[in-house]
């Protein structure tokens, strides 16, 4: 089932850039509809917000997407106001932005997007846009695979919305080896790890094909060994000319403390392309 798309819009230029992703997803959905939610928290005047939303609406009209806007007054805080505005359930997908500027606080840590990802009330896609010129239509996606037994199941619904405009998907399985062991690893050990990685990759590819069929999307898969999986993802993103990195989030890598050392934060900070952090119910 295709999800209903809700856009958490804060009126910043970053939100405008993120809105293109929501627009693009909605344009590929059968409902062709976006529910835009803005919480009037006093940062922007209502007039200014309406003008900005009108611009988003114009883009929606051009793409044949219906925009339903909802301006809500602040209740307690922006987060709880958003929770009231977006209905719970796996049929809903909330598109929101990562923090536009880190300023020493991180891009996701402590943001409303992080709270939404943690809350698990609906599906959430938090996006950091660094290349606004892509206009929310990345054609080459990089999916780093964590080795989770669920594979791509969680992300499939989201992917199906992206698929019509995607040319190529790169699946990347980074086999993580501790730094101490990595430098002393034998060739036989490396071969064994690669074999494990390739077996997992094959399983995911089979799963992908059975879900999506033999689509027009070209799928590439590679296995690498590294003692720093974040760095490896960033290298591969540059090397493969990926236009967006899509990663699944889990509680393990969403600690609000020590965010600067957090792996996801590192990717958001150093990414060469847009990044989407996804969490499905």
């Amino acid at each position, binding site marked *: 089932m295709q999800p209903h798309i809700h856009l958490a819009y804060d009126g910043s*230029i*970053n939100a*405008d850039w993120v809105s*293109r992703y929501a627009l*693009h997803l909605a344009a590929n959905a059968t409902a062709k509809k976006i529910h835009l939610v803005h919480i009037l928290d006093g940062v922007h005047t209502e007039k200014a917000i309406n003008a900005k939303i009108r*611009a988003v609406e114009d*883009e929606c009209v051009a*793409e044949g997407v219906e925009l339903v806007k909802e301006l809500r007054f602040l209740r307690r805080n922006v987060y709880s106001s958003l929770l009231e505005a977006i209905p719970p359930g796996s049929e809903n997908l909330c598109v929101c932005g990562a923090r*536009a*500027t880190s*300023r020493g606080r991180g891009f996701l840590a402590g943001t409303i997007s992080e709270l939404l990802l943690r809350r698990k009330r609906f599906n959430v896609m938090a996006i950091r846009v*660094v*290349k*606004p*010129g*892509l*206009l929310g*239509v990345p*054609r080459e996606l990089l999916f780093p695979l964590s080795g989770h037994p669920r594979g791509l199941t969680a992300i499939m619904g989201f992917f199906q919305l992206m*698929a*019509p*405009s*995607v*040319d190529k998907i790169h699946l990347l399985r980074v086999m993580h080896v501790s730094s101490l062991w990595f*430098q*002393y690893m*034998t*060739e*036989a050990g*490396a*071969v064994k790890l*690669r074999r494990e990685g*390739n077996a997992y*990759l094959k399983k995911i590819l089979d799963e992908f094909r059975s879900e999506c069929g033999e689509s*027009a*999307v*070209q799928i*590439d*898969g*590679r*296995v*690498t060994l590294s003692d720093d999986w974040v*760095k490896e993802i*960033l*290298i591969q993103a*540059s*090397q493969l*000319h990926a*236009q967006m990195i899509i990663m699944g989030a889990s509680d393990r890598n969403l600690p609000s403390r020590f965010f600067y050392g957090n792996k996801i934060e590192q990717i958001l900070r*150093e990414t*060469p*392309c847009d990044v989407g952090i996804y969490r499905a119910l």
Partner: protein
Amino acid sequence: MNEPGRQIQNLAKEKIFTLLHSRPEGLTGAEVEERLRHVGRNTFEVPDRWKTLRGLIKQFTNFFTILLIVSAGICFGAHSINPEESMDILGWALAGVALLNALFSFIQEYRAERAMEALQKFLPQLVEVRREGRIVKVQATEIVPGDLLILSEGDRITADARIVESEGLMANNAPLTGEAASVNLTAAPCAKRLTEASNIVFAGCSIVRGTGQALIFATGLRTEFGKLAHLSQAIKRTPSPLEQETAHMVRVLTVIAVIMGAIFFGYGVATGRPLWVNLVFMMGIIVANVPEGLLPTFTLSLAMGSLRMAKKNVLVKSLNAVEALGAVHVVCSDKTGTLTMNSLSITEITDPLTGAAVAPGLYRQTLALALSASEVRVTENGLSGDPLDVAVAERFTEAGGDLAAIQTNLRHYFAFDVAKRRSAGIVDYQGKKVFVVKGAFEALRPMLAAVASGGNEKMGEGSVPADTVSLDQAEATMSAMAARGLRVIVVAFKVLEDDLVTSGEIPDAMQESLEGDLILAGLIGIEDPVRPEVPAAVDKCHGASIDVILITGDHPETALAIARKSNIVAPEEVAHACAMTGEELSSHREEELMAKLAQGIRVFARTTPEQKMKIVAALKAMGKVVAMTGDGVNDAPALKAADVGIAMGRQGTDVARESAQIILLDDNFASIVAGIEEGRCVFENIKKFTNYVLVSNGPEILPYLLYILLPVPLALNVIHILSIDLGTDIIPSMALGQEPPDSEAMRKPPRAREQGLLTPALITHSYLFLGLLEGAWSLALFFYVLLAGGWTYGQELTLADPLYRSAMGIALSTILLMQIGNLVGRRFSRRSGLDKGIFRNRLLLLGIMIQVVFSWATLYFPPMQKVLHTGPVPLSIYGLAWFGIVLIFGVDYLRKRIMVGRER
């Protein structure tokens, strides 16, 4: 491809301003500020203020350095307990070695980071943008998405931008694509992918002609050039095989030293010896086990190897690459300039249908038409322009054509389009206006209406309709030419109506409307001959079980022909078994590519520079040591990812040269092979002197074991050990590092990545065979002197006792002399070592001389006696020490003979 895109290149320019929240007047200051906060500065470097310090500290964290520093600390501790032993000297010596090693490694690593500097130099510091309606010059780092970039001839682009205004814009994208020919740029929407679009200018590229404006949509690391820069910074070269093997050896020796030291320290404490005695003893064991001089000797040997390589046109930037080159399993080579001469010459012009050479008149006419779709400038230094265009002009002049007349009559030139793979021109020729297209056959085929044949010199007469039969026939002719290693370009034309092209300006957009109903005039075969020394060099690689892989952007047939001429593939091998195109390559997953490589794919045609990375990654995943050549800016990541990155000295860019470890001064493949031979020789020599140095560890350890287990005096102190390890053994080790290559070096397969330097056989031979022998003979003479002097078993001797000093002197002197026999024997693994050439290695003679002089000075030269606490012995006993040379050499030679006998 999926649905037509909605990316920035696909949309009309009016829409772009809205979507990027910009306007033709440019951004305001406040908007620039906000965006700078959002996406950061337009810079390619990830700021890291602690990088240098971290790099330096890292050098002090390896096993060897930690061991030396801890040992130095123990020495200083021992010195403070008992200053009479002068352990502080040893402490300073160990600390000095640790510091030198760490600093040297740091400098090596620091130098390798210079690729980034070369990339930064690629971009200008100031850039013109339109802001708030005015054109202003701003720092390139301060531009943001939405800024309107002003473009003019000669500008280097600083960010990725969508063109919104173009007045004859033409850009050179070579830094990104590797394609030397310039491309036309327009402001019109384009249906292609972002990286192939004709309305995008990319950071790092330059404007060669025209003016225009472009709206920036990506800055810094998010540009395509930024991704290259990121890869150049982020990819760390994997340690070379020698580095890995050295690290392994150091680990093993350190563990042995520490365990032995700790066990005997514990034993000493348990048997009630004083603490400082145990500390000194433990230090002795550790110092005896660690070959302090070995790592500096490695470095010296590699440095000498690099000097020898430089004489063979192989300039080594990173010393580890000297040996790594010798360990390669695969060499991935470019074609142009490396395997070939890079001198294009037209060798034939053929009739498309018959495949026969055309008559001289038609020959000149076809060249004239080809020249009309070329851009050649006459300069003081001769003709300049694209090498292919220059080759056409040169051959046209040689054939009696008037170059100036063609250039005067050229009405318009449509620049070469990389994606379309063709260029075009409109020329007044033979009183007619003629539109000419020159390019790849595949690109022109759909535009053809007729095929010229029969050698008719009247333009268009005698041609046959371009139906499937004639076109297939023309393609077969083209393939046959390509199969002979020729690069084939086709020339097609059509005569224009007089009023179609008026005297005014001809817009570039007209090209597309003219490209139809063309007559195929002829096929031009261009040859870039294979360098004469290449086939033999490739054969040498094959003899050494090294695979050679050709990676080129050329047509598969041409690539295959060059591969055949170079002996990379055998003449009878079929294309599908040994060649792959870039398109196929991009459709294969890494695992599938590995399977294809294992099956014997050795030619990659029509590939892009980025695909080199994929090939390197697959080969490395197969456990191969890979050498990769490259010359362009976009080759930098692949050069860093390969085990050995080789840049071209003549054609290469600064970025490629800074990213590589080796620079080929003559761009010649044969020089790589010469370098491999030298690299193999260096490794063999390193094995020889490692063996040599470890032999002396035996007689250094043995006295300490006897001293702790039995009531006997210590035959060697730590100063004696250091005088061997950091003194007399250095020059002989370097001499072994100077030994010439074995004639068999290039007939053996490369060693496996797993094969270590410190093999069980080498340990056994060094410690348990020659080491034991050397230890036994030196201790035998030590005890002989003691007993002859009246010493009784269990009697303690002081350091000042002349008898003890003489006994220590003969022990040290014997070891020094026996190292001569060891040195000569190490020259060959199966031959005696007294073979031809021994007197040509002057360092070897010097090494022998040093051992002789020091053995004498130890016993008979008072200043040396004072430093080493040694004393003289009768000459007859010194003669027995000399006998040690014959003993060690003879016993080892006997072993060699037995081994040879067994191998037979």
